[in-house]
């Protein structure tokens, strides 16, 4: 999966990839004060193209809001919601809108799920539908945080640690390995990292083609940018 960290104050963005074995579950957001947790499980391609490396994507997300007693499991097949033990199942094939006491859900058919947790967070999960007979790829999901300002300062996770911004400096760019993509040095969290100017896609408005977002790419699974290392974010279950 590709992570993108937007920094409106700097009018810039950071990006990095996380690759591990398919099936790994990563913690994306964890806020101990509000009791909000978002975990995601990766999937791989149906089969690996011998000519390329194996890519992974998110295939399932598990979202918990302790205070509201909410659990949400979103896969490429279905959406399971439970609130204080009451359960409901929603399908990607229908336009659905559910307005609850503390949570609003809006499914846009075969495209996106918008989740608003009262006074807490708002996010969108995008469904990428792939041609069923595609030899390698399968359906996968994207996770976009729309409003994170109500998370506490203690929020962490692969995405959560950036909700209150990140301080960094970038040196003058210089020619890198790829002639179209200059490199630079980034000074962040006490590290000096070699980064590459590239872009990643925002699929919220155009789920098929996406829109390019220029960003500084941090190599090697975001090492140096993320706190700790990748194993610190792997968890044993979705909930």
């Amino acid at each position: 999966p590709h992570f993108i960290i937007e920094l409106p104050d700097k009018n810039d963005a950071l990006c990095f990839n996380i690759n591990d074995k398919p099936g790994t579950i990563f913690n994306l957001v964890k806020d101990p004060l509000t009791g909000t947790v978002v975990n995601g499980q990766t999937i791989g391609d149906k089969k690996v193209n011998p000519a390329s490396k194996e890519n992974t994507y998110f295939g399932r997300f598990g979202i918990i809001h302790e205070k509201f007693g909410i659990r949400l499991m979103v896969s490429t097949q279905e959406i399971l919601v439970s609130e204080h033990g009451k359960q409901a199942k929603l399908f990607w094939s229908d336009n659905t809108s559910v307005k609850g006491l503390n949570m609003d859900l809006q499914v846009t058919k075969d495209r996106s799920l918008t989740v608003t947790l009262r006074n807490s967070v708002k996010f969108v999960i995008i469904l990428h539908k792939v041609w069923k007979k595609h030899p390698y790829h399968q359906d996968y999901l994207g996770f976009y945080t729309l409003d994170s300002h109500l998370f506490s300062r203690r929020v962490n996770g692969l995405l959560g640690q950036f909700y209150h911004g990140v301080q960094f400096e970038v040196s003058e760019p210089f020619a890198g390995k790829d002639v179209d993509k200059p490199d630079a040095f980034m000074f962040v969290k006490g590290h000096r990292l070699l980064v590459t100017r590239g872009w990643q896609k925002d699929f919220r408005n155009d789920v098929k083609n996406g829109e390019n977002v220029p960003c500084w790419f941090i190599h090697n699974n975001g090492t140096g940018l993320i706190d700790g290392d990748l194993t610190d974010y792997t968890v044993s279950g979705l909930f």
Partner: protein
Amino acid sequence: SVNSAETEVQSVKIDCKVASRFAHTVMTSTALNKANVSQEVFFEVELPKTAFITNFSMEIDGKTYVGEVKEKEKAKKQYEKAVSSGQTAGLVKASGRKMEKFSVSVNIAANSNITFTLTYEELLQRHFGKYEIMIRVKPKQLVQHFEIAADIYEPQGIAFLDTYATFITNELLPLVEKTVTDKKAHLSFSPTLDQQRKCPDCDGTLIDGDFFIKYDVNRVQDLGDIQIVNGYFVHFFAPADLQRLPKNVVFVIDRSGSMSGKKMEQTREALQTILDDLYEEDHFGLITFDDKIVEWRPSLSNATKKNVNAAKTFVKNIQAVGWTNINDAVLRAVDILTAAEKNKTVPGNSASMIILLTDGDPTFGEQNLDIIKNNVKNAIGGNMSLFCLGFGYDVDYNFLDVMAKQNDGLARRIYEASDAVLQLQGFYDEVASPLLSEVHFNYPEDTVNSLTGSYFKQLFNGSEIVVAGQLNDIEMNDFAVEVSAQGAENYFVAKGQASAQKWDTIFPDQEYIFGDFTERLWAYLTIQQLLDKKDKGTPEEKANATAEALELSLKYNFVTPLTSMVVTKPETDEKPEDTLIADKLTEDQRTGVSTPSQTVPQTSYSYASSPINWVDGD
């Protein structure tokens, strides 16, 4: 409107009568079904939010179905019965910033006609030196007889009167007839079928938009104008030629994360102009807050050019991030104003106010709304007024409204739109020029009773204070009146005698207008004030105010937040008799309508420029 060419809207008439600012509007529409089968006819009317519906009726082939105003709880029982039998109910919906929509549809039999009549009443409020009547007309098709007629009777004399409409073209302009004499104005607009047409051969109508009438009355006396009619009196107070009071204002600006992007940008832009508009004799301060409270300066500054420029630089650099600590921010503003008064760094005759701008619920520090209201009320202690601006739809507007009213101010919603800057500046302009403070109205206790509010923290330039009451003796024709207040140069005291005028001489042939207008004006104003009290008083005061407001609403047939109008639709071949409900919406219910930020969250202003972090595939 009608769905079929075989049904025609025969007439639409809007008749508005205003007597001493109290407007009584009747909208009547008649349709005829010429078909051999039954047809559905829709009646949709938009009325001002500030108005109360007082009557609704449908006349079908000589039989009249009249709406009945009932206590909300009782009406609800009927409504629930209707809902449980599969029928739809609510007739009133929010519509835009100023209006709410009343709509009903009825199936009418072949070759029969229907007449809908809706009546509503409101007290016109003076803003920026004028009263405004707004009539929204959207007949959707050509109408055989279309007419807007307005008659205005103002015993003080009409100073000026303007009309315009958003749909009036050069061809339609001469059709607006206007006759203004000293105390009376008559307006009418009645285009023929051909004049309504968009083009010679088409059926589209030009009549689609808002019709405005704006006017003011003559103001001369210090005491204001007092009218005595039928045992009721109303006192209009907005004296001319008063000098402005210096003001001490602290702007408390929310810069939490949800303000980021457009809202913060618009706030910065509006403040640039607002700061420029401060008068040199004013004192001001600025506080910005997220979870931290940041003052521009620890005490008030004179609004000199140099200080204003420094404040503008500070404002330019406000950035949105973090949580929302309303409690500590407002309390800090109170401290600054209190210190200024205590240290006598501001003039003794000045008016102190806090203007709070926020877009969300408190999420940091004290978050219990009742405790915040108490803290603010105790800290202010009646020594200054608090005005609250709720930006967007995520605010708990009711909280801001009550907190402002508890502290002699008012709340206003700022709608998220491209004109938000103008809305902010407009609100500031309304309160920018206090003319008097601590305004007390005194009437002899043995002469009058059931007075509406008679103390006002401030009188602002361009506005008007209205007090109404009952006379102990219906035959009484005069009584003593005194108004006292703090003025700019000295203490303002106006004394005089109110006396009943000879209406039949002032308005010969129209004396019927004054039959019960003053009484209804008193009832309208009393209900409005009781509804405010219901929100802000002690539990006992709340209960008493609710009971009293309900009693008056029922007595005067007003659809208020405490009552509902039950409308019975006639039985048809397909459906049994329907029961529908017309309610008065509260601000909370209005915000329940779809807004851009709720229906299209991805592109809403609130989140468009928040940091959006995501994970996805190629």
